[in-house]
């Protein structure tokens, strides 16, 4: 290892781990001691990354308050050093960290997961958006074999707690409800409509249909599956209704007649 590389490793340890070895290679300034000056880097490291997490998780911050958020943020910075040159991706591991480190408050990980999903939708890849007029081009006999491709920004999330209700209350500057575990998990669909990230809760059968459609299952089979959920006589109508909703919300990037 070169002397330069050794020195950088020591400098980094000084910031991340509080190792003081590097101070022997640093000069006092005319007005200040070296440990104070080196402390500028130590302080900036933690505060900058906690701020990055705060920017990405505005509502989690509001939910926890300044002090608890800062404590959590510094714990995350310590446990999960940044591995990506772009700070945009630093907070990606926060839901997993909270799930393990704050396991007695599962709503925190789920609130973070919802914010992460919305952030990811905000700057997700661009994709063509299927319009209702595109559907007019398909012959009636083709409909049963139509296959659908979700927009690149679309993602699904299942929440075991009422984190979505907490998110909504915080977003509207209202007092959030007490955190609870739901009897039946909330099935969320997150996506970007034009430039705005959105989410909505799906009924169980629509969630099933979306997941299977995203797996490439054709419309005819999707309708057969819907028939097992509720009244089989109007399964096709319900399927067409869900499909209409997806198209008007900009959730599909492609519809094609598949084999």
């Amino acid at each position, binding site marked *: 290892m070169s002397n330069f590389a050794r020195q950088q490793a020591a400098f980094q340890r000084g*910031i991340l781990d509080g190792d003081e070895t590097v101070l022997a290679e640093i000069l006092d300034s005319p007005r200040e001691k070296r440990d104070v000056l080196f402390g500028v880097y130590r302080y900036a*490291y933690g505060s900058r990354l906690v701020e990055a997490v705060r920017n990405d998780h505005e509502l989690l911050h509001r939910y926890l308050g300044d002090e608890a958020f800062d404590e959590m943020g510094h714990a995350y910075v310590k446990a999960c050093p*940044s591995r990506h040159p772009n700070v945009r991706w630093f907070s990606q591991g926060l839901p997993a960290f909270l799930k393990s480190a704050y396991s007695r408050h599962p709503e925190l990980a789920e609130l973070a997961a919802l914010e992460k999903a919305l952030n990811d939708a*905000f700057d997700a890849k661009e994709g063509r958006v299927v319009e209702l007029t595109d559907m007019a081009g398909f012959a009636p006999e083709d409909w049963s074999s139509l296959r659908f491709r979700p927009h690149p920004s679309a993602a699904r999330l299942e929440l075991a707690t009422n984190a979505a209700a907490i998110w909504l209350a915080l977003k509207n500057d209202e007092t959030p409800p007490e955190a609870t575990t739901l009897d039946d998990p909330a099935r969320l669909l997150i996506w970007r409509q034009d430039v705005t990230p959105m989410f909505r809760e799906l009924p169980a059968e629509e969630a099933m249909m979306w997941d299977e459609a995203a797996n490439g299952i054709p419309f005819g089979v999707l309708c057969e599956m819907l028939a097992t959920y509720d009244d089989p006589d109007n399964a096709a109508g319900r399927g067409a209704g869900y499909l209409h909703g997806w198209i008007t919300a900009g959730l599909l990037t492609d519809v094609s007649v598949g084999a």
Partner: protein
Amino acid sequence: MNVASRLPGMSATSLAERPATSAKPAFLGFGLGLRHQHYDEILNGDPPIDWFEVISENYMLPGGQPLRTLDRICERYPVVMHGVSMSIASTAPPNLDYLQALKDLAKRVEPKWVSDHLCWTGVHGKNLHDLLPIPYTQEALDHVVSRVQLVQDFLGRAIVLENVSTYVQFNNSEMTEWEFLSELSRRSGCWLLFDVNNVYVSAFNHGYDPLTFLNGIPADRVVQFHMAGHSHMGTHIIDTHDHPVCEDVWELYAAALKRFGRVSTMIERDDNIPPLDELLLEVARTREMAEQVLSAG
């Protein structure tokens, strides 16, 4: 990883000292750092700004509103890309995925130039997201020269490097920061972004005259000035970019104009972002001061 093998037509031995031959970028006028708080006002109005500098990493994204807005800005204004994560002075292997993403963005933006900082941001796979200082040694200079050449070959263009604000100095430095920057520019062919505020901050922190730094930089290598604010802590100054430019830095700007002549200048505000009108007053002052100083000869 053999980095040279990923450069078309390059071998490790051909990465010898070889200044880039690109022409000096043209003068752009008086610009501003693009911040999302001002997107609507800029796109719905016609503010008197000659060009914009964008933070490269803010747009190294898959898609969405930031890139769509950037496309619209690029249709109307000259744009310069300014990065914070190249880590040009790191002793870690170069991050080719980062460089490829930067190159892809440059293809989209067609910037007048691509800049970053003379610093490192981490080693051993970790990123500290800070502009960390280096010792001014021959060993460090040789390393950074070869790294700049590699990046320039990868990007297919000469890059522009900025002096950073520093809070510490190393006891093994063998030359001054301005000697290091001058040699780096001469040997690698990179251009220099002279951050007037950073010179002021580092000069105060380390106890030297900022004019000594200024006069130590070759006049023909500087293609851009940054003007920014800072936070004074009494015994040291922290480069926070969250205040207006202070009078001492304006004074140093006048001296920089006398030495370097007509140089593309911009106001850089990163935190505590004020309304656009407030920053336009600072942009106007860079323009007025340049006209005043340069017309006086």
